[in-house]
């Protein structure tokens, strides 16, 4: 389809179309929007892209993306080190931090178990979670994966895996809309889901 565009434009469209949620039509729209900008703003965008990739690291404790390792949250001595909230991805951490209600630590799985997509526990940061539970003074694990089929299954899998007498395992309440995403939920709903968590 992009064969009719000049070669540099076609390449730009091709790269943009690889982004999630961007189809060929949107890629064309974006490409022409970008080409209409002055060179300085294009440079700022390019720098932001490269800078983000270069300066962002994975925190080896919680597996979240961060600007240093360990990340700000993991190295904050005022956080409650006995509570661990397990989420699907980095956006969930941002959503829960925004509520300013949760003071414990996080663990980012990097997705959910989904046999249809070939994703099992080995493709997620489950092994790292188990290792943390063996080393850190964690007393409660709160499973906060999305309340959909894969999120529920992942929570169940982890609950069975980490079961231990001295560890409390809870699941956030079903206050979220069915099939709803944690990173889309409003703050009141999130706080209520956290407060209403129940033992697995």
């Amino acid at each position, binding site marked *: 389809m992009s064969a009719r565009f000049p070669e540099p434009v076609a390449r730009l469209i091709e790269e943009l179309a690889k982004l999630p949620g961007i189809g060929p039509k949107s890629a064309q729209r974006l490409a022409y929007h970008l080409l209409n900008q002055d060179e300085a703003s294009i440079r700022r965008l390019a720098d932001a892209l490269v800078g983000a990739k270069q300066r962002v690291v994975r925190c080896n404790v919680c597996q979240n993306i961060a600007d240093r390792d360990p990340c700000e949250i993991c190295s904050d001595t005022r956080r409650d080190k006995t509570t661990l909230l397990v989420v699907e991805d980095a956006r969930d951490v941002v959503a829960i931090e925004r509520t300013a209600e949760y003071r414990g630590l996080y663990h980012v799985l990097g997705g959910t178990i989904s046999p249809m997509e070939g994703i099992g526990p080995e493709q997620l940061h489950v092994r790292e979670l188990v290792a943390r539970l063996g080393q850190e003074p964690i007393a409660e694990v709160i499973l906060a994966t999305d309340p959909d089929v894969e999120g529920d299954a992942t929570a169940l899998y982890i609950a*069975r895996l980490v079961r231990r007498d001295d560890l409390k395992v809870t699941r956030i309440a079903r206050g979220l809309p069915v099939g709803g995403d944690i990173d889309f939920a409003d703050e009141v709903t999130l706080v209520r889901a956290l407060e209403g968590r129940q033992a697995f």
Partner: protein
Amino acid sequence: MIVETLSLESWRNVAEVEVAFDEGLTLFTGPNAQGKTNLLEAVFLLATGRSHRTARPDELIAFGRQRAYLRARIRRPSGEYQLGARIEGGRVVRQREGKLFRRGQDPLGDFAAVLFAPEDLLAFKGAPADRRRLLDLDVGQDSLAYRQSHQRYGHVLRQRNALLRSYERPPQELLATWNSAWAGAALALTHERERLIERLQPHFAARSAEISGGPPATLTYEPSLKAADPQQALAALAERREEELRRRTSLLGPHRDDLRAEIGDRDLRLYGSQGEQRTVLVAFKLATVSLLAEGAAGPPVLLLDDVLSELDQDRRRNLLLAATGTQTIVTTTESSLAGMQPGRTYAVRRGEYVGTW
């Protein structure tokens, strides 16, 4: 409620058209393959989010177009509202007064449609999947809980089957996880089906006696999973374990449910005459209309897609008489309706609709 008008854009062979419906009977006549069914399909999709003819929404979009649009004006006792759908990129997105909702999530469920097409006629003789389709698409509109548990079970089942397909012996803990997910979803849907059929049964008995003039027919649910709680469900599943691992697919649960219709003591899957098959189907559709009418939505729209010519004079008349008081939209290749007077008639030719009333 009543669908007053419907406009279609880039839908199947229709470029752009708006039609108005009578609150009683509306008739669309014309030769085959001119686009009569396309219109009923559109009404059905607005109610259910699905087409009865295809599982691939892109087939609904006119050739050479990117997306199709439907817009309807719905009238209820409490007022009017707009119901719309956009079909694009393999997805159907419906909206009500401009607010989007996903399938199985429509909070009100106040627009329902019962569709009766020729391929339904032998459902009680055909495969169990044909009978489950009657439940899921038509009767299921009665309950949001039903639609949600149906959708959830389908999703869990696809995941569990993917797991069974990807391993000769799935890891123990992973299989246990999906077994538990399956048990919860399977019990929920089995329970919803039990309730739905229990409520449908009296309507079905009454309608079948009315139509045949004989003894009432009965409807019985035959669940694949017979269990009272998750422990029992998992125990039943464990018995099928080796067979499931060998065949690499789920062998127990609502995707294997069946529905039995009987007249006297005769199971119609085995013994029904062609006339009895038709009686039972007409009774089932009318029972569905009565059941839905008891719900929040009030009477559904009855869509009769070219089925009248498949019925004899008596059944045809009985069907139309029984539907009095229900908004009914009929497509037929014939021009008369066994003496019934439609409020509006449209002649359909190559996607054009010419109305007279």
